[in-house]
Every structure is written in structure tokens, then in C-alpha cells.
């Protein structure tokens, strides 16, 4: 069966450390992966996109990697801050699809001061 999984429901880290979130998928052929941030009571906000032929993308303190052999994407937040506390969602677009994203359930990140 096709699945997209974010391994941790919750991740607690200390301020200043690097947070690493995992997204694994099975039986999909993704054209690319996206990462979104969702705060309570709000809709998701787009953060980063990485294509199937890209290994790594960076944006400020954020870094995303994509390993199509392992069928895995890692999302890193360096020098984490309490304001980074939120739920982070990964989503993939299947190759040939027109825009219908498949979302994981998310990882709730808590950064403690």
C-alpha cells in the first residue's frame, strides 16, 4: 500500500539545538516533496520544496534533504528557537499528478528555552 509517514508524532528539543524531522514514503514515485509549518488553529504555510533530482535545499536556518533510494526526506532546523515550535508536515506530489499533494500526519516540534 502507499504510505507517507512522519516517524515522530512529537519532538522536544532544547533551544539552540538542531531539530531533525523525518518523512518516509512507500510505493510512491514523487516528483517532489514539500514541507509546511502549521500553527494551532491555522492553515499550513509552505516552507520548502525539493525536487526528485535534488539532494539538498536550504533556506535560512532550514535545510531539506531528499534521498529517493531510501525514500526519505529529512527536514532540519538549525539554531532552533521557541518560535519554531509548531507542527511540521511533509507532502509529496506524485510524478504525473496535477497538484494533488499527499500529506503526512505531521510532527509536533516543541523547542524549550
Amino acid at each position, binding site marked *: 500500500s502507499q504510505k507517507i509517514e512522519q516517524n515522530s508524532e512529537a519532538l522536544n528539543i532544547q533551544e539552540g539545538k538542531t531539530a531533525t524531522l523525518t518523512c518516509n514514503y512507500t510505493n510512491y514515485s514523487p516528483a517532489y516533496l514539500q514541507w509546511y509549518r502549521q500553527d494551532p488553529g491555522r492553515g499550513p504555510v509552505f516552507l520548502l520544496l525539493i525536487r526528485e533530482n535534488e539532494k539538498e535545499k536550504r533556506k535560512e536556518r532550514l535545510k531539506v534533504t531528499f534521498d529517493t533510494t531510501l525514500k526519505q526526506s529529512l527536514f532540519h532546523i538549525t539554531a532552533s528557537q521557541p518560535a519554531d515550535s509548531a507542527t511540521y508536515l511533509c507532502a509529496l506530489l506524485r510524478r504525473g499528478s496535477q*497538484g494533488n499533494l*499527499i500529506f503526512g500526519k505531521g510532527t509536533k516540534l516543541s523547542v524549550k528555552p
Partner: protein
Amino acid sequence: GAGVSQSPSNKVTEKGKDVELRCDPISGHTALYWYRQSLGQGLEFLIYFQGNSAPDKSGLPSDRFSAERTGGSVSTLTIQRTQQEDSAVYLCASSGTGKSYEQYFGPGTRLTVT
């Protein structure tokens, strides 16, 4: 500019009643999506509109759910004969004509069926 807006923000309805949820996408965005998010669950795709093409309805859970998009802009999601399992946050998103498919989400409508 203005983002995606949805109305109402909250809706409480009795089981068996019909409800309509509205989405105003970002002006100029050709693609519009509806998702459903239940407590502890990921976003579940419902329906997708792209320009004047026939919508992709493959995610609609039953024939009680329908959606339309008028004039390529505003969209309405209708749920007929609501059931308690329909209780969820309904999210609308839109995206532009670029190939990145980056989606801009509205704040959602929280539907509670009593």
C-alpha cells in the same frame, strides 16, 4: 495582497442537515484544493479544480460531498445530510500557474456535527 479566505470559521450543525463552506482563493490562482483535517490525522485530499478542466473528485469520501467553483474563483464545498464523522477542519488552498505547486492555505472552517 490578500490570502485565501474561508467562511464561516466555525460551523455547528445538527446531524442530517446540509452545510455549505466557502473558499475565496488568491486572485489569479488557477488551482483550488479542498482538504479535510481530522483530529490527529493528516490532511486528506477531497477535490481539486484547475482552470476550466473537469475537477479531480477522487478524494470525496461519499456522494454526500460535492463542490463547485464559479467563474474560476470562489468555491463552495457542500456536505449533505451531515454525519458526526464529518466533523473536522475543512481547509482550502490555492496555487498559481507555476510548476512548483506551492499551495497557499486558508485558515479553515471547523465543522462540528452534533
